[in-house]
């Protein structure tokens, strides 16, 4: 097991800068999730840790050892590729056993370990097949089994569950979490899926445009997003964001007025509030008046989109909610759950009664 550190790492492809000055430190045994939209540099970061891509600048350390110039095979990492990277001419068993074969582990020892890894990912009966005879999800599980067949210093997993069906994804998620806990292997895990990030991670690094926007525990990222990007990216549905002004301790936007313990020196801000912190009320009984724009049943709740003034807000209503398109409705906002962001910089603004410090 080992820690992984990226110190001032940059990556340029020609003139295109994929990563700008990345500082990231993953503790020994930690499960770190890289979360971000497509093209933000998650795979690139992983590939640099694995040694498949050279850092343009900065240092990469595994277990305290500088590995910038070490070959992939000498870094002792295991990786699940986004597009599997299976060996098409080898059977599933040979694929999973390859890391052992290369290390000269043979015979019954290898066979046993291959079998155990395959069973963990429910591949038992497919061991003799070739990758092209498998479905996408099955291939992904082969890639996963190949990574867990030995105990490396670091696991690198690039969206390892993206092609599984919802049910298997939940099972595998738990399996990965358990496995990581059991083996205690430092893990860097890439995903688009917030639920995966939230459930798996010790800490989440939210990335955008080659920059880490926030690196913190899942709770902190959810409760105290560091900037507008994180606020809008984390949570489903995304946080309601309303541009407006703070004057005299109240927030004002066209058609919306919210009183609260806002900082006196306000100015132009963006107010953020999660849908579960907005409650619906009968017309005239809330702080925000509007009309139902749409309502969607998600299963355990109804998401009501309300147009109020110039903005649209999503509120989470009990599943019994029935409101026709255009019917009048009022909203109440849990003042203690309000987030404020600087209009110009997008950064979080800390204010009085919140214990978040920024």
């Amino acid at each position, binding site marked *: 097991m080992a820690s992984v550190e990226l110190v001032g790492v940059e990556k340029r492809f020609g003139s295109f800068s994929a990563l700008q000055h990345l500082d990231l430190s993953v503790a020994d045994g930690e499960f770190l999730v890289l979360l971000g939209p497509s093209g933000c540099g998650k795979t690139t970061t992983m590939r640099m840790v*694995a040694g498949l891509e050279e850092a343009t600048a900065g240092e990469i350390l595994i277990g305290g050892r500088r590995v910038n110039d070490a*070959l*992939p*095979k000498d870094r002792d990492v295991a990786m699940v590729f986004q597009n599997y*990277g299976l060996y098409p001419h080898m059977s599933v068993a040979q694929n999973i056993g390859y*890391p052992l074969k290369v290390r000269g582990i043979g015979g019954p020892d290898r066979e046993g370990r291959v079998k155990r890894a395959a069973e963990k990912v429910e591949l038992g009966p497919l061991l003799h097949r070739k990758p*092209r005879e498998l479905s996408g999800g099955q291939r992904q599980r082969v890639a996963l089994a190949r990574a867990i067949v030995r105990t490396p210093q670091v696991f690198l997993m690039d969206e390892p569950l993206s092609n599984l069906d919802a049910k298997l994804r939940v099972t595998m998620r738990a399996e990965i979490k358990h496995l990581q806990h059991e083996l205690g292997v430092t893990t860097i895990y890439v995903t688009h899926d917030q639920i995966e990030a939230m459930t798996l991670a010790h800490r989440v690094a939210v990335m955008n445009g080659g920059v880490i926007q926030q690196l913190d525990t899942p709770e902190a990222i959810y409760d105290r997003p560091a900037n507008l990007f994180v606020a809008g990216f984390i949570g489903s549905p995304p946080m309601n964001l309303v541009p407006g002004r703070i004057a005299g301790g109240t927030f004002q936007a066209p058609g919306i007025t919210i009183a609260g313990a806002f900082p006196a020196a306000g100015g132009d801000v963006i107010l953020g509030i999660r849908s579960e912190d907005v409650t619906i009320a009968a017309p005239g009984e809330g702080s925000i008046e509007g009309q139902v724009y749409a309502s969607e049943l998600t299963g355990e709740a109804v998401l009501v989109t309300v147009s109020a003034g110039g903005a649209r807000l999503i509120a989470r209503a009990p599943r019994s909610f029935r409101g026709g398109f255009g019917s009048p409705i009022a909203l109440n906002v849990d003042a203690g759950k309000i987030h404020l962001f600087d209009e110009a910089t997008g950064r979080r603004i800390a204010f009085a009664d919140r214990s978040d410090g920024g």
Partner: protein
Amino acid sequence: MTEGSSLPGAIAAAPRPTRAEPVRLSSRSRRRIAGAARTLTILLVILVFFGPVVWIMLTALKQPRDVYSLSVIFTPTLDNLRTAFASPYFLGSRTLNSIIVTTGTIVLSLPIATAAAYAFSRFRFPGGNAWSLGVLATQFIPPVIIIIPLFVAFRSAGLLDTRLALIIANMSFVVPYSIWMIKGFIDAIPADMEEAAQIDGASRLRAIWDVVVPMAIPGIATAAIFAFVVSWNEFFYALVLSRQDAVTLQVGLMGARTERGDAWEIMAAMGLVIILPMLVLSRYVQRYFVAGLVSGSVR
């Protein structure tokens, strides 16, 4: 019902120009004519391609006096083969030379070509494509132009009339073409697999051996067959660079053109030995070759 069955009524109702009549055959007879035409074409192609082969096979078994008769009924004899193996034709040692030169060319060319193809496919060279194209461009120089310098070079190296000289000469055209054949296949192999192998603990060389080579096998096989065919049939370099010890089958064939005239039956006997491996090849590995040429990709 076929179109034809409704014809009489249609004609009665609307008379049409007579020129159209002969074309309006029933579809069944039209199909029959098309079938016959196809069969005829196939027969013609077979005749053109296999006629000479059959002629050589028959001639090789004929006695000298029967050679010019087209009759297929004659008393077969193995005398020609016996004569060809004896002095001055030495079919045995020439066959051995051909086998050694061809095998040597293949065995040396393929690893070199595979390695070069990998390099051209995976690495960026200063000057871009110029290098890989340059390799191919060498082939636009006609052999007649370089044969004299080559001859001089081999003479000063003391390699004239050796099989090694012929192997080297063959490699000069087998390697460049093989590089391009194999490169096409390696280009189609995604890099992640060898990257995966390297992360799994393999060195780059081992990753190439374990992952790239097995997947490039169709391409390598294509190149191998190509190398076999061209070096087995190579004539010009062998003619100039060999005199006695390293003479190959192809050049040896010329030995049957004596002052007393062309000994067709001896040439045919030699020809038999020359085409034999080709026949075997076409029977067993042609499938590979075709697959290799048309697909150019791996799944």
